[in-house]
């Protein structure tokens, strides 16, 4: 039995921004098990209301300790119940589940684009990428307003360049994260020549002609992922996106979390949640 269904002790559960909670869990035997992009399936309460578990991404993971951090936003009944659980109590969790992000060989320039709570799994990814030599990480965080911008400090501490975009302009540029992505890709194209000098920071990198060296990762609402797919298409940049669907079992048994791909309906919980954006059929 590789996966765990177990009781996880809550070490920390605190509100870090309005409606946004950070939770640290201690799960015995968890060290080294999870990869960025995977998730835990959590039973929010003990009764049947809500009935199903809730999928929450691993936000920060340690290879050495049995501790995993989650970042979640109170959305409805389940996440509300989670937010009220106090330190020292236990949560019933299953995980780690799903397939995480892949980092193909030869990549050294990474662009991460997050919409809303999409930042949650991308921090784990950035943590992992930061261990690579000669890398450059750029993170675009898109949020509704200044109050919902989270994780800027985490990304900066990892050594990433962070660009914040808010819909109401209350922090960073006004607009959508995807518009910023378009701008950056254009930027890369102009500076393509400098790549030969060896990539060091994001401004030295080209995307257009050197696509295989660029890793683009996206996490956010469906509309945002669709728009990212459209933007990157002409550049042939392989882009991985983390998707959300409503889940029943979380382990691939019920076919409830289907998403349409070029290969037919696949399961977000099993084949995903991370998919190559080029594989998704957008309706």
């Amino acid at each position, binding site marked *: 039995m590789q996966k765990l*269904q177990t009781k996880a002790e809550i070490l920390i559960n605190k509100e870090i921004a309005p409606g946004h909670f950070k939770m640290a869990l201690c799960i015995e035997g968890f060290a080294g098990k999870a990869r960025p992009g995977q998730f835990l399936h959590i039973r929010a309460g003990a009764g049947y*209301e809500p009935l*199903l578990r809730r999928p929450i991404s691993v936000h920060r993971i340690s290879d050495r300790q049995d501790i995993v951090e989650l970042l979640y936003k109170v959305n409805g009944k389940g996440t509300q119940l989670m937010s009220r659980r106090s330190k020292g109590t236990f949560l019933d969790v299953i995980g780690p589940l799903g397939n995480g992000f892949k980092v193909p060989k030869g990549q050294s320039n990474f662009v991460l684009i997050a919409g809303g709570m999409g930042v949650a799994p991308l921090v784990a990814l950035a943590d992992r990428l930061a261990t690579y030599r000669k890398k450059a990480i750029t993170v675009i965080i898109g949020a509704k307003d200044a109050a919902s911008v989270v994780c800027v400090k985490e990304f900066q501490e990892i050594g990433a360049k962070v660009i914040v975009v808010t819909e109401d302009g209350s922090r960073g540029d006004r607009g959508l994260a995807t518009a910023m992505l378009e701008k950056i890709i254009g930027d890369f194209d102009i500076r393509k020549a400098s790549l030969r000098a060896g990539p060091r920071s994001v401004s030295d990198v080209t995307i257009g002609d050197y696509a295989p060296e660029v890793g683009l990762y996206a996490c956010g609402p469906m509309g945002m992922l669709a728009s990212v797919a459209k933007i990157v298409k002409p550049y042939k940049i392989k882009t991985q996106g983390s998707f959300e669907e*409503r889940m*029943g079992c979380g*382990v*691939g048994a*019920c076919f409830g979390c289907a998403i349409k791909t070029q290969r037919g*309906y696949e399961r977000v919980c099993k084949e995903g949640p991370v998919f190559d954006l080029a594989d998704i059929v957008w309706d």
Partner: protein
Amino acid sequence: MKKINTNNALEIDIGGLKLANPVMTASGTFGYTQECRELISVSELGAVITKSITLQPSPGNRPPRLWETTAGLLNAIGIQNEGLDDFVHSKLPLLKSAGTRIVASIAGVCRQDYEALAKALDATDVDAIEVNISCPNIEHKSPTTLFAQDPYTTSCIIRSVKKQTDKPVIAKLSPNVTDIGLIARAAEKAGADAVSMINTLIGMDVDIARGKPRLGNITGGLSGPAIKPVALAMVWQAYHRVKIPIIGIGGIMSTEDAIAFFLCGASAVQIGTANFVDPAAASNIIRGLRLYLKNRGMKNIRELIGQLKV
């Protein structure tokens, strides 16, 4: 194959399907076991009922396919599966290695589909066939929405299936009927070795903000604790109308829930939605039943069946 302990108080024979214990996992909620093998010990289960198999691969319905309701779950999966050939050649060998009884659930859009499926499965080593004539999420070539809504179509399909196989045949019935006893009788007369009930109740939910249905397929099937009272009543009603064993399904989450079904006349139970909430639900229920019988000095689960005091 695991040897069945004859001293086992939980051992039961369901129309020729001999089980080490009367707790199975319900069709569509347990995959083909490999998904759950990493979490629980599948060999403990009385049987696994596979996701319904169709003749040809079936893509399933458009998402969203699930919506949670008060203590319940609406689903409109639409029997996504890779079809009969894939089942026989790639799924079945794996299933058989799980160390428990394997019941193949079959579904089709016409009688000929069921016939072909039963014929093909008869040649395999599945232990029994459950005939799903009650899935609310696929369209049938039938005057009623579901085959199981009409005693005549129920009996036609069951009779055809029986002609194709010597394996125990279980008719899976729908709660979306006026008289479940009538349908259960029709299945029995047509030769069914057992009936299982209930499949999901047709239901829907609405997103009032967008003025749209919650499911891609508009309507779906309701399961989970919310349907337990309906399922209990139907098992009780059918118990007085048929002699063949009844397998109770619907909202069973705990040992107590399972006992209620046995008291109402079920000879075995299937666990569905509970697997999503707690993959250990079926194992816990098996353990709970064993303890319950022991504490009451009962030698066999049969002593409990239909013992409701009315």
